C-alpha cells in the first residue's frame, strides 16, 4: 500500500536547518491501522503531509497503491489526493459557510459528479456517521464531535484507499473521542488503510501498529495484534537509535 524509502525532508528555520525527516523507510500494508506517535517537532506531521502528497520530500521515493509519487504536477497531486486519500484534521477544517451536506459532497464536486448524485451520496455518508438530521446545519451549529464526524464522512465519500488523520481526537472529550475511534475501527474493518498521528498513548494503543518518531527518525515500530500483522512483515528497522 505504502512504500517509503530513504525519505528525507528538512526546513530552513532562521539560521538553522531543521531535519524533519531523516532517511525514513516505512512499508504499510493494505488494511493496516497505524498510529504515528511522537512529541511535537518529531516530524510526525511532516510524515503525514508527505504521505498525503501535501508536501514533497527532499530525497527518497514514495509509492502509493502501486503509483510512484514523484515529480507530480500540483494538479496531478490534487487528483491523487482526491482519488486515493481521505483527510481528517484536528481542527476539522470544514468550510464554515457550507452546510454539513455540502461539505461532505465537496470532494465529489472535484470529481465532477452531478449535484443530485453527490448530495444523495453525501446524505448516505452523513447517515453512516449518524448525522443525517444535521445535513442542513452549518459547522458553527455543530458540536466538536459532530463536526469531526462530518469531516470523516467527507474523507470517506470518495472511498479512498488510505485514510490519514492528524490528531483527530485532539480537540474532543473522551467519550466523543471514543465515537470517532469507533468510526475509524469500522472503516478499517472494511479494509481501508488508516494512518493516524497522535500524541495520546491511549489513542495510539487502539491501533494495530504503533510507530514512534523522534527528531525525524523512527525509533520504535511495534505491532500489537500478532494475529493480524506479523512483525516480520515490516522491513524497516524495528528500533533505530540515533
Amino acid at each position, binding site marked *: 500500500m505504502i512504500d517509503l524509502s530513504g525519505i528525507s525532508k528538512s526546513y530552513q528555520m532562521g539560521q538553522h536547518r531543521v531535519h524533519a525527516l531523516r532517511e525514513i523507510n516505512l512499508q504499510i500494508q493494505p488494511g493496516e491501522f497505524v498510529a504515528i506517535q511522537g512529541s511535537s517537532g518529531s516530524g510526525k506531521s511532516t510524515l503525514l503531509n508527505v504521505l498525503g502528497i501535501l508536501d514533497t520530500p527532499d530525497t527518497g521515493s514514495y509509492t502509493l497503491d502501486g503509483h510512484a509519487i514523484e515529480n507530480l504536477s500540483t494538479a496531478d497531486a490534487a487528483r491523487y489526493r482526491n482519488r486515493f486519500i481521505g483527510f481528517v484534521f484536528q481542527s476539522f*477544517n470544514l468550510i464554515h*459557510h457550507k452546510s454539513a451536506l455540502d461539505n461532505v459532497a*465537496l470532494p465529489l464536486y472535484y470529481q465532477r459528479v452531478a*449535484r443530485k448524485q453527490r448530495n444523495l451520496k453525501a446524505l448516505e455518508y452523513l447517515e453512516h456517521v449518524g448525522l443525517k438530521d444535521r445535513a442542513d446545519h452549518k459547522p458553527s451549529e455543530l458540536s466538536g464531535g459532530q463536526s469531526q464526524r462530518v469531516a470523516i464522512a467527507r474523507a470517506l465519500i470518495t472511498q479512498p484507499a488510505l485514510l490519514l488523520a492528524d490528531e483527530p481526537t485532539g480537540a474532543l472529550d473522551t467519550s466523543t473521542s471514543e465515537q470517532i475511534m469507533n468510526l475509524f475501527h469500522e472503516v478499517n474493518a472494511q479494509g481501508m488503510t488508516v494512518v493516524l498521528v497522535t500524541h495520546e498513548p491511549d489513542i495510539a494503543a487502539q491501533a494495530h501498529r504503533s510507530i514512534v518518531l523522534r527528531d525525524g527518525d523512527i525509533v520504535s515500530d511495534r505491532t500489537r495484534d500478532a494475529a493480524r500483522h506479523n512483525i516480520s512483515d515490516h522491513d524497516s528497522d524495528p528500533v533505530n537509535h540515533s
Partner: protein
Amino acid sequence: MIDQLAEIGDSLRTHKTRTALAILTVAWGIFMLVLLLGAGRGIQNGVELQFKDDAVNSIRIYQGKTTIAHNGLARGRSIQYSNADYDQVQAKVPHVDKLTARYYVGDNRVSYGGQQAAFDIRGVHPDHLYLEKTIITAGRYINELDLIERRKVCVIGLQVVDRLFAEVSPLGKLIELGGTVCQVIGVFTDEGSRSEEETVYMPVSTTQLMFAEPQRLHMLMYTVGDASYQQSKDSEQQVRSLLAETHNFAVEDKRAARIYNNLDEYKKITDLFFWVRVFVAVVGVGTVLTGILAVSNIMVISVNERRREIGIRKAIGATPGSITRLIVLESVILTTIAGYIGLLASLGLLELLKATVPENEYMYQPDVNTFVVVSVTVLVIASGTLAGYLPARRAARINPVEALQPS
C-alpha cells in the same frame, strides 16, 4: 458550470458587505463613463442643432483683390464677378444644389408715405430663400418670372414693415428706393437673426438694371446638398480654379476670391468633439480602472480571508486550475453585475434627461449607441478577468500545509 456558479453565489452571499462594496465601485465607474459619453453626445447634438438652424451646408464666394502677380498683371487688382460667373458655377461646378448671387445696392434709403429709413437692399436669385433660411409670412418670394421680366418687386423683412408701415398691410404697396418705385410682394421673418429682417430683397436682374450694371454681381453663394465634406471641398476647389481662369489670377491666391465653406466650421467642431469624446473616454476608463483596482483589491482580501478554505479545497482534491477559475469567475460575475447596474442606471438617467430637459442648444438628445453598450460589456468582462487573475494566481499557489496549520 451551474455547480461553479452555485459555488460563487454561495461565496458572494457569504461576504455581503464586501460584495456590495465591490459592486458599488464598479457600478459607479461604469455609471460615470456612460453618463459622460452620453452627455458628450448631447453637447455635440446641441452644437449640430445650432448648425442646422443657422447655417446650411453652404459655400459663400466673395470678391477680393489679388495679392500675387499673375500672367504679367500686378497684384492689388480688384476682382469683380458677373453673370458669367453665376452661369459657369451653375454649369460646371459639381454638387451645386441651390445657387444664388447677390447684388448689393449702395443707396440704402427706403421710404413709404412720409416714413424713411435705411435698410440693406439686395438683388438676389429665387434660391436665396433657401440659403438664408428666409421664412415668408405673407405674400411670396421672388421667382424666376420676376427675374426674367426684371420686375420692380420686393420682399421685405418684418423690421422693415414695423418701421415703414403703421397698421396697414404692406402687400401691394409701392415703396421708394434707389430712385425708383417697387411693389411689395412678400413679407418675411428669419429665426436666425433679427438684423436679417432689416433687409429688402429684389430680383437681381432688376437691381442690375436700376444701376445700369446689367452684368455685375457682388457675391455668389450655393449649397452642396447631401455632399460629403470631401465632396464639398472638391466643389469649392472647382469654383476657385474656374474663377482663377476667368479672372486671370493665380489659383493659390486666396485673397482674390474669398471662399468660405460652412462645412469647414462644421468640420472643426466635429473634430473638436472627436477629441472631447477621446477625453471623456480617457476619464471614464480611468474611473472604471479605479473600480477594477478596487475589485482586484477586494479579491486579494477575499483570497487572504479564504486561505484556509482554499487550503481545505486543495487538500480534498481541488486542482490549482479549478481554484484560479473559481476566483476569476467570481470576479467576472461581480464586475458584470456591477457593470450592468451602472449601465442601466446611467441609461435611465440619460432617458430621464432626454424626457425632461427641454430642447436647447447646449444639450440635445443625450444618448449612447449600441456600440458603446457593447464596448462597455466587453470592457467589464475583460477587466473583471484582469482584476481576478492576479489574486486567483495567488490563491492557486497557496500551500495547503501552511493554510491548514491550526491558527
